């Protein structure tokens, strides 16, 4: 009970400063859609031939994703997948993977 009352209070405080409705775990949730191939939290199974994304810099990840989207970076599948996400979503995903150690 106590915990939830505190949550509600925290909510009111947060609501006073921001008006957006995004889920605070959006980056985590979006990055999880990549885990089927790149591993849970971007840690790919070693030796299975898929790239790990965990701990890569955000800028580097975003550059690669932009190059997949534009077609500059040749790919078997990433050009098709990256186009399904907005640039804002890719930024959240890159930030999440960059923060994984």
């Amino acid at each position: 009970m106590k915990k939830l009352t505190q949550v509600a209070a925290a909510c009111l405080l947060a609501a006073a400063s921001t008006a957006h409705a995004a889920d605070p775990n959006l980056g985590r949730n979006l990055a999880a859609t990549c885990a089927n191939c790149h591993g849970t939290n971007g840690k790919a199974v070693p030796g299975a031939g898929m790239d790990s994304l965990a701990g890569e810099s955000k800028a580097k990840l975003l550059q690669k994703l932009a190059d997949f989207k534009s077609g500059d970076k040749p790919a078997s599948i990433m050009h098709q997948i990256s186009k399904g996400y907005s640039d804002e979503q890719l930024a959240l995903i890159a930030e999440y993977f960059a923060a994984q150690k």
Partner: protein
Amino acid sequence: MMLMKRREFLKAGAAAGAMASLYGCAAGSKAGGHVVVVGGGYGGATVAKYLRMWSQGSVQVTLVERNPTFISCPISNLVIGGTKTMEDITVSYDNLKSKWGVRVIQDDVVAVDAAKRSVRLAKGGDLSYDRIVLSPGIDFMFDQIPGLNNAAAQEKILHAWKAGAQTVALRKQLEAMPDGGTFAVAIPKAPYRCPPGPYERACLVADYFKKSKPKSKVVILDANEDVQSKKGLFMKAWADLYKGTLEYRPNSEVKDVDVATNTAILEFDKFKADVLNVIPPHRAGSIASQSGIKLINNRWVDINWLSMESTSTPGVHVLGDAVFPAPTMPKSGHMANQHGKLAAAAILNLLAGQEPNPAPVVMNTCYSFVDAKNVIHVASVHQYDAATKLVQPVKGAGGISAARNELEGKAAMGWAKNIWADMLA
């Protein structure tokens, strides 16, 4: 669990939830409670692990699965083709238990009481829950093929559309078949589990015949009017690799079988095979389709795409092949895994008294082998659309392989190893 405590918890949760939606706030509070997951396949194992991981252990999870180990349908066509073994497609539930703290019970769930929030186990005993996730996969509608509607017939005319004993048995039938024989695979009308799967199987059996029994033939009896997935790429593989070996017959729905003679009975025709592999029409696994929750077409569960929760029965979330799919969404292991993550995120929010994420995204990839090494893919990304309340395919995204290639043969195995680890390691 003490009932009083849970009630209070739920009430408080609902209040906080109302506030959260009012002010657009979803602070990172901790969820608590007990989630029961029925079925440890692609959807169920994923949701169990992610609930534990994302709640940092604060949500208790019990997974009930009838089988002692996980056996993957993806890659099982390579076992049937003879280039992989059962060991290659079997994964233990040990890490879910020891690493993630999931309580795994090997048993059958025989009934769900959604009003009392409890389930009954076959071996006896009830489990109570705050929320339940059903990911039971499919069950076959054998009554649609009268000759197959008994145990003896089902041991002779196999489906091998759930991986396990049937996978091994079908491989044995193919090995025992003399050269010059015919293998026929019958596909039910869509929607069915894994749209490209039967065509992949036909390719891999044809590849095996080419190498080991070159006078033998493969015939696809498709109830549909056309190839259901990656049509151009499959037809090209058939023309380039299996000309004279593999024959495709559309509009060939199997209405019945004559078990004694291994004959498929079509509407106007009959087809006798040496090895007859009939994939019967299917519906949501019986624990989902027989629990009184709302179905569509009497076969698939109607769910809310923000939470994977049944539209009729609060507290019951359904994943994977059992759900009525959103537009262009296939019944695949990849997609069931994505459903599992969508549901895990939503359940943690709900248990903490918050609204589910209003903008979920899921994506799919199905790799198919056209021979032991060459693979083709189909991919799609689906974003939630508030107007239709469905996850909708993103236009201009996704697509298929340019051509079959060996690089994606490696990627397909990489996918399998990573998705198995994502569920179970």
